[in-house]
């Protein structure tokens, strides 16, 4: 009976299943990718020794910087057999957006981890061994050449490690790694071999007491992605939740419709002596059945998607999924849950139908409500929507959530972009920003300090301001920017003092207003950063959320604290004549090919992280709109089913096909327009709510503009249009005679 009921409306069942399936597919594929990423990334440093030493407080080895000389001190610790210094960095090339570089001394135990399968190992400068996957996606082999920041490296060998991410990178000598990472005499990590008879924990403690900046991990227990794990799973769930909610609404919608159109039938069943419980079981059964089918389909789609992503060249290794039975169970449980939730309300409605009334039910709006709230305006399309308010609300909510997601993400992205643009006084149009080319993340940008003097000497340049950026991310300081700046440079003007005075000594800092509020500190208080104590001498305000949620200090001190002596994150250049800005920019670009030189006003757009952010938003938004579109298509299908007789009548009265077509499309567009408006409001409210969360004001700065809303509503309308094509076509193709006979 349940199956027959579902089969009665194959299109509706199909669309509902599809909606659920997409939700479940998202859960499965994102879950698998997150898990894969965590597992993969966690083991990416290729630990071949007993202990791993990295910078304390560094988010992961990628952000870790240690002095090379530290190796000697670690070597001297009793119980230490050998110390291998290593460089670990990440660059972006044209072909490979994420290219990992490992630098180890040739012949070291750590380098042996990269098992050469073709050619020979790296033995000297400007040689590279490529991972198998990297070689495949770059289509290079032994004796070919790759260019890293313009410098040619000869491929001497191909290695395998059995680890997807490692195999997407390349191995070079330590010295070359230092050059690529722009970390002269610095390393990312040390791999320490412990003597056979020594107690590994004891050695670990001894190394830790050597220096406060060291964090020592036992290799077998280490997972670099530990800090990310929660975040990544959170992301995955957040995105999946959107898809799930929309899918669930679609399910509820379909079931409500199914109950409505079967009102008479249900009345008959009740009149024939069925109990409420039986009715509830029937409706819930249908819902659960639909969603379980959706679940199975979704798991299959999810696996397919993950496999597809993993096979993408270049980035594939980062999206290699790991499936666990738990994940599949999670997907199916999600589906089951959706079925129960989506079926509960319709089942309740069905059970509460009075047999007498439901037997009289004729379809169409109930006389009472129609009399009281009749829409007196709008065409038939609007009135048809009004006739089925529950359905309209449910489907509008479905697509509305999609729109809300879009608005939310877009505004946050715009906010972040605007923020980056404003970062460190690039407000004036004459400014130029330099950063390292092709770094994967803004905070990884490294420039040589000597460039400042060279730029200063160039014609047309008024002033040059160096800037070093770092972050504290810890439990009590979730996101705290440290800006290192020359107190005498012109960029200093950007930090408008609201209280106190400027920095005069290394142990003095200025903090932003938001930070002062969040951490409840003020002038005269001290702040501890990476175990260094700083006195707060002033409060500033810039209007940039990052900055106002962080601090600035003298450049030298920041370089020391962040362990990046003589290096900078950005260089800001002021020109004498604003009209000459493009000429100066071009000159800088020629002079410093390793740097990305942008007009400050469009600096953020140029960065890779912004491009990635945009791509991510497109994917999430696309997903939400896809599910929303399915919900709308489903609704329109239902709408034409229940109006089959009406459509037949209209055709018999001489309405041409295109008129019917137009009406269905119009109805769908109205639905999406309402949903778009509703979703925009919902998005605004959500972002506003999020920005009120504690500490969020240090990261989220929201920027609204008409464009965002216009885009969102425009997309909603396009979705409405696309989603209505099939139903409209079906409606216009109805044969009048058959439609009139339809019951």
């Amino acid at each position, binding site marked *: 009976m349940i199956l027959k009921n579902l089969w009665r409306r194959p299109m509706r069942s199909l669309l509902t299943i599809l909606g659920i399936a997409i939700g479940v597919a998202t859960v499965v594929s994102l879950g698998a990718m997150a898990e894969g990423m965590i597992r993969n990334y966690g083991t990416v440093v290729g630990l071949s020794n007993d202990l791993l030493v990295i910078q304390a407080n560094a988010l992961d080895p990628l952000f870790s910087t240690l002095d090379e000389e530290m190796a000697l001190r670690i070597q001297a610790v009793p119980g230490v057999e050998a110390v291998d210094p290593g460089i670990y960095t990440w660059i972006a090339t044209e072909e490979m957006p994420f290219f990992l570089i490992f630098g180890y001394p040739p012949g070291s135990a750590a380098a042996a981890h990269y098992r050469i399968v073709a050619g020979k190992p790296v033995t000297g400068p400007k040689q590279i061994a490529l991972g198998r996957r990297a070689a495949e996606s770059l289509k290079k082999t032994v004796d070919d050449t790759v260019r890293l920041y313009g410098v040619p490296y000869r491929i001497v060998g191909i290695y395998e490690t059995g680890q997807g991410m490692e195999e997407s990178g390349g191995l070079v000598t330590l010295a070359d790694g230092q050059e690529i990472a722009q970390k002269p005499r610095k390393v990312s990590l040390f791999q320490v071999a412990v003597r056979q008879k020594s107690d590994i924990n004891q050695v670990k403690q001894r190394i830790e007491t050597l220096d406060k900046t060291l964090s020592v991990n036992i290799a077998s227990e280490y997972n670099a992605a530990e800090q990310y794990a929660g975040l990544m799973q959170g992301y995955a769930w957040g995105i999946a939740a959107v898809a799930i909610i929309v899918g669930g609404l679609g399910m509820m919608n379909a079931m409500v419709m199914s109950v409505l159109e079967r009102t008479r039938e249900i009345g008959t069943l009740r009149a024939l002596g069925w109990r409420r419980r039986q009715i509830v079981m029937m409706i819930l059964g249908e819902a659960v059945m639909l969603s379980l089918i959706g679940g199975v389909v979704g798991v299959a789609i999810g696996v397919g998607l993950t496999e597809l992503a993993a096979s993408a060249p270049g980035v594939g290794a980062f999206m290699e999924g790991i499936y666990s039975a738990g994940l599949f169970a999670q997907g199916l449980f999600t589906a089951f849950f959706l079925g129960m939730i989506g079926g509960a309300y319709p089942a309740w409605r069905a059970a509460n139908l009075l047999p007498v009334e439901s037997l009289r039910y004729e*379809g*169409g*709006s109930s*006389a009472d409500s*129609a*009399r009281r709230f*009749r829409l007196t305006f709008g065409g*038939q399309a609007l*009135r*048809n929507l*009004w*006739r089925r308010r529950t359905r309209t609300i449910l489907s509008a909510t479905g697509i509305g959530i999609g729109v809300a997601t879009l608005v939310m993400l877009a505004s946050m992205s715009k906010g972040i972009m605007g923020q980056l643009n404003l970062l460190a006084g690039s407000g004036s149009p004459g400014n130029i920003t330099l950063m390292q080319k092709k770094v994967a993340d803004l905070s990884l940008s490294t420039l040589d300090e000597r460039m400042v003097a060279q730029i200063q000497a160039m014609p047309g340049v008024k002033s040059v301001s160096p800037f070093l950026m770092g972050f504290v991310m810890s439990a009590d300081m979730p996101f705290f920017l440290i800006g290192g700046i020359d107190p005498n440079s012109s960029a200093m003007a950007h930090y408008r003092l609201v209280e106190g005075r400027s920095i005069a000594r290394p142990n003095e800092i200025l903090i932003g207003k938001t930070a002062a509020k969040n951490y409840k500190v003020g002038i005269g208080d001290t702040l501890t950063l990476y175990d260094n104590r700083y006195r707060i001498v002033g409060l500033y305000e810039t209007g940039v959320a990052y900055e106002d949620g962080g601090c600035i200090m003298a450049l030298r001190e920041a370089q020391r604290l962040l362990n990046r002596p003589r290096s900078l994150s950005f260089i800001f250049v002021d020109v004498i004549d604003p009209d000459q800005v493009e000429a100066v920019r071009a000159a800088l670009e020629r002079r410093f090919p390793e740097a990305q030189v942008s007009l400050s006003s469009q600096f953020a757009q140029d960065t890779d992280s912004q491009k990635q952010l945009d791509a991510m938003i497109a994917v999430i938004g696309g997903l939400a709109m896809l599910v929303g579109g399915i919900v709308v298509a489903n609704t329109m299908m239902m709408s034409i089913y229940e109006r089959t*007789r*009406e459509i*037949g*009548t*209209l*055709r*018999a*009265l*001489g*309405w*041409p*096909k295109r*008129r019917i077509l137009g009406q269905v499309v119009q109805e769908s567009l109205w639905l999406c327009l309402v949903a778009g408006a509703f979703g925009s409001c919902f998005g605004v409210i959500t972002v506003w709510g999020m920005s009120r969360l504690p500490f969020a004001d240090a990261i989220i700065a929201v920027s609204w503009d008409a464009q965002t809303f216009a885009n969102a509503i425009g997309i909603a309308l396009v979705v409405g249009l696309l989603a209505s094509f099939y139903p409209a076509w079906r409606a216009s193709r109805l*044969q*009048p*005679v058959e439609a*009139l006979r339809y019951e």
Partner: protein
Amino acid sequence: MTDELIRTVNLTKIYGAGEVAVRALDGVNLTVAAGEFLAVMGPSGCGKSTLLNLLGALDRPTSGEVWVAGENLARLKNVDAFRAKTVGFVFQLHNLLPTLTALENVEVPMQGHLSASKRRMRARELLALVGLADRDAALPNQLSGGQRQRVAVARALANSPALLLADEPTGSLDSQSGEEILALLAGLNRTQGTTILIVTHDRRVAQATQRIVRMSDGRIISDHRLDDPLEEDLRTLANSRLGQAILEHNGVALKHLCPDERIALQRLLERLADRG
């Protein structure tokens, strides 16, 4: 009657195929002149609705031809315009659009043919014609069954069709409302000259027309004109109180013996003559 409005030639409609094929119409030849008011009668399933659908270009025949107002429906270029302008439909169930008011329902067939203000005016006229001028803002579910059917008649007349097709228009109504509708249709036929073809099960409904076509198993089995003066008189008599009384008196036997009105009336006349 000179002008020929409908002509069917060996009209055949077969539903389904092979074992389950149903011959709903089987070689129907029917000619209807403009201005006629005729009833199609017959047992359920004999093909009445099928015939009507073919005449209204709602469906296509399996074989044979249908000519309406000089056009071969198989060669019709614009079926929609034909449906909108040449024929008007009244269904057994009113089939009004539930979201639209009475007035707006009447406007539906004119959409795309007349401007909004002209539509409104014409719709008001039509509602007045069917006696519902004061209920123009009512929704279908706020009207009685008979009123809904009147709105449906007004809607069918929207574009002044040459032919009005009504499929059991009184079928779902009580006898009082049924008679109202019938009187309305007869009046339209008389005053506007609209050709009306009505499918009915109701003998009394049929008697209000000028011609009765009987069908059985997809064929026409009899076709009687009631339009000669004698017949008119007889019919008037049969409907009169006196005639009723006489019929009632011998009703059962008469009906049983002579299923056909004409014979019944002749007998009646004879009896009357007998009595002087």
